[in-house]
C-alpha cells in the first residue's frame, strides 16, 4: 500500500469540512459558489472511497492512528471490505442526490437559505463518512451526532412549516437514542477500559456474563433501533420523511439510514461478536421476530397511505426490517443478503423518492390518487418509478430480487422456514403498494387536461434518476460485482478472520 492511500482516511473527512467552510465564506460573497463546491467535495469523497475500496478488495485492512497514537490512547480509523463498500454506496447516492438537488432544492428551499442548505448537506455527508470509517466507539457517537444534527437541521429547513414539527420530533427521539448509545458506550468502557472496537472485541469475551455488558448491549441496541427506525421505534420516521424537503428525504432515506444500519451491524458483530448475540445473550431470535413484524407492519401501513412520500416512508420501515432480518438469522448467506440489501434499498428508495420529488416539482401533487395518467406526461420518470418499484417488490433480475434471494436462502439454511415465508409475504405486500401507484400512473384517466403534456423534469434531475433506475437492473444482472465485496464482508462480520 503506498503512502498516499494510507493518508486518505482522514482526508475523507477533513477536506470536505474545509470545503464546507469555503462554501460558507464564498457563498456569503456570491451565492452561486456554494453549490459547485459542495458537488466537488462530495465528488472528491466518492473518488477517495473508490480508491479505498480498490485497495482493501484483497482482504487487506487499513488502520490509521490519528496523531500517531495507537489505541487505546488514540482514535483509530479502520477501512475494511465492509465499510469501504458502505462508503462507496452512500457517497454514490449522496453525489447523485447533490446533482438532483441543483434544481430539486429550489422546490423547498428559499433562495436565501440555499448556501446554508448546501453547507449543512455537505456536513451531513461528511458526518456519515466519519461514522463509516471510525474504529472508535466514542468517535462513532460523535460522528453519529454530527450527521444527526445536520439531518435535524435539514429536515426542518423546508418552506413547509410542518417540516419544523417533524424536525423537532426527530430531534427529540434522535437525541434520546444518542443518549442511550452513549450510556451503553460508558458501560462498555467501565467493563473493559477501552473504546477501540478492535480491542473491545478481544477484551469483551472475558466479561460476557457481566450485567454491565448486558446493560451496554441493551442500551446500544435500543439507541440504534430508534436511529434506524426499527419497528416499533419508528415513530419519527414517517413525518420526517414526508415533511422534509425532497432532496433531504432522498439523502436521509438512502445515506443516513444505511450508515446507521451499518453502525448497528458493526457494533453488534465487530464489538459484541456473533457468539455473544447467539450464545451468551441470545437476542437473535427476538430480533428475527421483531424484524418479521416490521416487514409486515411497515408494508401494511404503506398500503394504507394516500400520500406518495408517506407511503415510501412506511415502505422504508418495512425494508429496514429486511436488514434487521439478516441480523436475526446471522449466517453467511443472510448477512450477505442483508449487506446487499443495504445497497439495494439505498439505490431503489433513492430512485423512488427522486421520482416523488420530481412529481411534486412539476405538478405539486403529493397524493397518489392525483397521479392519474401521469405516465403520459412524465414517461421517463414513471418508467424509472416502475423499474425501481419492481426492484422493491423483488422481481428478477433486479437488485432487490438478488438481496431478497440471499435473505431467503439464509433463512432456509438456518431452518427458519416461517421467517422465509414472512419475507415472501413482505414482497407480496410490497407488490400491492407499488402496484397501487403504478396502476394509477399508467392506467388512470388524465383528469386535468389543462396541465398539458411535456412535464418531464429538468435534465439535472433526470440524470440521477435514470442512473439509479438503470443500476437497479444492472446491479441485479451483474450481481457478482457487489458480491465480490459483500461476501468477504459478511464472512468478516461472522468472525471468519
Amino acid at each position: 500500500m503506498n503512502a498516499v492511500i494510507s493518508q486518505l482516511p482522514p482526508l475523507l473527512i477533513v477536506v470536505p469540512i474545509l470545503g464546507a467552510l469555503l462554501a460558507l465564506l464564498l457563498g456569503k460573497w456570491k451565492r452561486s459558489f456554494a453549490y459547485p463546491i459542495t458537488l466537488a467535495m462530495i465528488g472528491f469523497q466518492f473518488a477517495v472511497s473508490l480508491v479505498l475500496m480498490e485497495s482493501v478488495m484483497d482482504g487487506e485492512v487499513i488502520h490509521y492512528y490519528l496523531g500517531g497514537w495507537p489505541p487505546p490512547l488514540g482514535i483509530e480509523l479502520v477501512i475494511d471490505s465492509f465499510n469501504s463498500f458502505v462508503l462507496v454506496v452512500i457517497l454514490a447516492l449522496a453525489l447523485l442526490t447533490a446533482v438532483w438537488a441543483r434544481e430539486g432544492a429550489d422546490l423547498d428551499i428559499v433562495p436565501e437559505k440555499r448556501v446554508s442548505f448546501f453547507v449543512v448537506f455537505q456536513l451531513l455527508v461528511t458526518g456519515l463518512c466519519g461514522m463509516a470509517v471510525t474504529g472508535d466507539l466514542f468517535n462513532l457517537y460523535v460522528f453519529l451526532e454530527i450527521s444527526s444534527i445536520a439531518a435535524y437541521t435539514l429536515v426542518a429547513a423546508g418552506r413547509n412549516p410542518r417540516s419544523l414539527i417533524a424536525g423537532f420530533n426527530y430531534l427529540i427521539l434522535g437525541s434520546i437514542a444518542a443518549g442511550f448509545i452513549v450510556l451503553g458506550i460508558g458501560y462498555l468502557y467501565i467493563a473493559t477500559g477501552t473504546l477501540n472496537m478492535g480491542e473491545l472485541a478481544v477484551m469483551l469475551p472475558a466479561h460476557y456474563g457481566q450485567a454491565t455488558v448486558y446493560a451496554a448491549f441493551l442500551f446500544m441496541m435500543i439507541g440504534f433501533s430508534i436511529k434506524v427506525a426499527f419497528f416499533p421505534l419508528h415513530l419519527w420516521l414517517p413525518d420526517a420523511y414526508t415533511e422534509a424537503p425532497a432532496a433531504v428525504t432522498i439523502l436521509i432515506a438512502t445515506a443516513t439510514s444505511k450508515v446507521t444500519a451499518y453502525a448497528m451491524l458493526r457494533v453488534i458483530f465487530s464489538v459484541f461478536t456473533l457468539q455473544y448475540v447467539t450464545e451468551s445473550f441470545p437476542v437473535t431470535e427476538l430480533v428475527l421476530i421483531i424484524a418479521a413484524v416490521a416487514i409486515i407492519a411497515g408494508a401494511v401501513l404503506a398500503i394504507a397511505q394516500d400520500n406518495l412520500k408517506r407511503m415510501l416512508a412506511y415502505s422504508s420501515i418495512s425494508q429496514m426490517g429486511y436488514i434487521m432480518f439478516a441480523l436475526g438469522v446471522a449466517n453467511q448467506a443472510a448477512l450477505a443478503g442483508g449487506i446487499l440489501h443495504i445497497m439495494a434499498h439505498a439505490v431503489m428508495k433513492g430512485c423512488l423518492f427522486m421520482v416523488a420529488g420530481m412529481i411534486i416539482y412539476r405538478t405539486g401533487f403529493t397524493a397518489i390518487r392525483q397521479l392519474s395518467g401521469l405516465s403520459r406526461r412524465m414517461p421517463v420518470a414513471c418508467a424509472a418509478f416502475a423499474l425501481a418499484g419492481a426492484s422493491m417488490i423483488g422481481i428478477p433480475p433486479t437488485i432487490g430480487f438478488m438481496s431478497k434471494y440471499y435473505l431467503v436462502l439464509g433463512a432456509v439454511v438456518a431452518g427458519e422456514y416461517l421467517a422465509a415465508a414472512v419475507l415472501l409475504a413482505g414482497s407480496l405486500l410490497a407488490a400491492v403498494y407499488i402496484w397501487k401507484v403504478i396502476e394509477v400512473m399508467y392506467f388512470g384517466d388524465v383528469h386535468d387536461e389543462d396541465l398539458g403534456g411535456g412535464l418531464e423534469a429538468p435534465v439535472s434531475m433526470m440524470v440521477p434518476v435514470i442512473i439509479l433506475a438503470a443500476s437497479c437492473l444492472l446491479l441485479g444482472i451483474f450481481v457478482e460485482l457487489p458480491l465480490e465485496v459483500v461476501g468477504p464482508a459478511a464472512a468478516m462480520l461472522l468472525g471468519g478472520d
Partner: protein
Amino acid sequence: MENLLAFIATRYIYIMTIILMMIGLYALIAKKNLVKKVIGLNIFQTAIFLFYISFSDVDGGTAPIFLPDGVSATYVNPIPHVLILTAIVVGLAITAVALAIVVGIYEEYQVTGEDGLQEVMKRQ
C-alpha cells in the same frame, strides 16, 4: 438490610444519576411545552454526563495535572472527562438546533405548546 444500606452508601451517585435521567425523560414525554421538552432533554443529557464523571473517579485521586519529575500522585481517569467535554459540545449543538426549531415553530404558529400546535394543525 445492611447490604442494601451499604449498596446505597457506595452507589448512591448512580442512583441519583438514574433519578435525574428519569426526570429528564419524564419531562420529554409528559411536558406539553416545547421549551420544557428541550429543558428535559438537557436534564437527560446532564445525567449521562454525571454518570461518566462519577465512574471516572478514583479513591483519593487528584486532578490529572502534569506534575514535575519526582512528584507522583494518584490521578482520576481523565479520559471520561475528555469524552464528556465532547458530549457537552454535542449537547450544546442539539440544544441550539432545538431552540432554533422552537423559535421557528413559534413564529409560524404563535404557540409553544403541543396542545396549541395540534389545534392549529387541525384548523388548517
